[in-house]
């Protein structure tokens, strides 16, 4: 007769889905697509930055975007004039998870693009814990949010490769110290590449796009690209 047993497992609860994300990452690297996961608080300018980025890259590169929101397809409508866009609505969930990316990628028609952007749900907490199969994780911090945010949301900063300080044109009007924000962020992730941009009027977009192009070349050269630990 069976008795009560202790079954030892020792398994990361997200191991299976992160394994699928890793497969997607390898598959897209092999076809030359750099996958960029964009994280930020709501309203810090992800959609505007992606529109400006697509416009800048358009002459030489093919781009597409999967855009996540809790409700509505407003962002996909905003982005559609700039690049192929598919809206992912989570129906309440506060972050994107890999199965949604797979679904969205199929809805896009699995295109031969050079850059696939993933616009995450506006949230600096939960998205940091989910590998979406990206090669590059980028965090936007707008000047209106305050320069004290990095230490308050350490995982989002720790796991990112780049920090884009957005709405830089508002710096004369808000108490935001760029050097302080960057120092705070680099105390959590010393390898962060940092940029300062604004989209109305556009500034810093070239430097940011040059960085994306250089990261894609690194990926094509076989350098490992995945979220930081």
């Amino acid at each position, binding site marked *: *007769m*069976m*008795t*009560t*047993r*202790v*079954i*030892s*497992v*020792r*398994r*990361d*609860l*997200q191991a*299976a*889905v992160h394994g699928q994300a890793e497969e997607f990452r390898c598959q897209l690297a092999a076809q030359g697509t750099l996958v960029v996961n964009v994280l930020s608080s709501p309203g810090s300018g992800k959609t505007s930055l992606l529109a400006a980025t697509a416009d800048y890259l358009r002459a030489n590169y093919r781009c597409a975007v999967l855009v996540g929101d809790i409700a509505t397809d407003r962002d996909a409508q905003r982005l559609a004039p700039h690049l192929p866009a598919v809206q992912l609505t989570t129906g*309440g*969930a*506060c*972050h994107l*998870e890999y199965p949604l990316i797979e679904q969205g990628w199929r809805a896009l028609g699995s295109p031969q693009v050079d850059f696939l952007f993933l616009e995450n749900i506006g949230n600096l*907490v*939960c998205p*940091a*814990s989910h590998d979406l199969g990206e090669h590059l994780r980028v965090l936007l911090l707008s000047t209106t949010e305050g320069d004290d945010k990095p230490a308050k949301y*350490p*995982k989002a900063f*720790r796991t990112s490769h780049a920090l884009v300080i957005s709405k830089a044109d508002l710096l004369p009007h808000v108490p935001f110290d760029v050097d302080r924000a960057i120092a705070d962020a*680099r*105390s*959590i*992730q*010393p*390898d962060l590449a940092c940029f300062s941009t604004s989209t109305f009027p556009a500034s810093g977009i070239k430097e940011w796009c040059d960085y994306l192009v250089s990261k894609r070349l690194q990926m094509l050269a076989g350098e490992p690209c995945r979220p930081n*630990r």
Partner: protein
Amino acid sequence: MHEASLVKSLLKQLSELVAQHGGGHVREIRVEVGLLAGIEPLLFHEAFQRERIGTLAADAELVITPVGLTCHCQGCQLDFVTDKLEFSCPTCGAKQIKILVGDTVILQSFTLAPAVEAELTP
């Protein structure tokens, strides 16, 4: 929200594991929640209380052990353990560190009781 989705994933994985071990009822579940896992143990526990109803873990107790970070310093090549969200080596001060443990939720083990007892109860 995030805690609830992780609990659902835990219950799904448990149901697969129980099937692999010939069926039964889950009595105790032990998980380790890392300091940088992005999960609040209290909310994880509350989500479990809600989600376990009607599952094979309906009577199970969830035991959560918080764990700190284990990191490897790329400066002095030593590993260190910390309970603080400070990302530098306590020995040499280097900021180039790699997190080895503490940024995930680990299902350590569970206790599986035979189904017989429940099946005999009308």
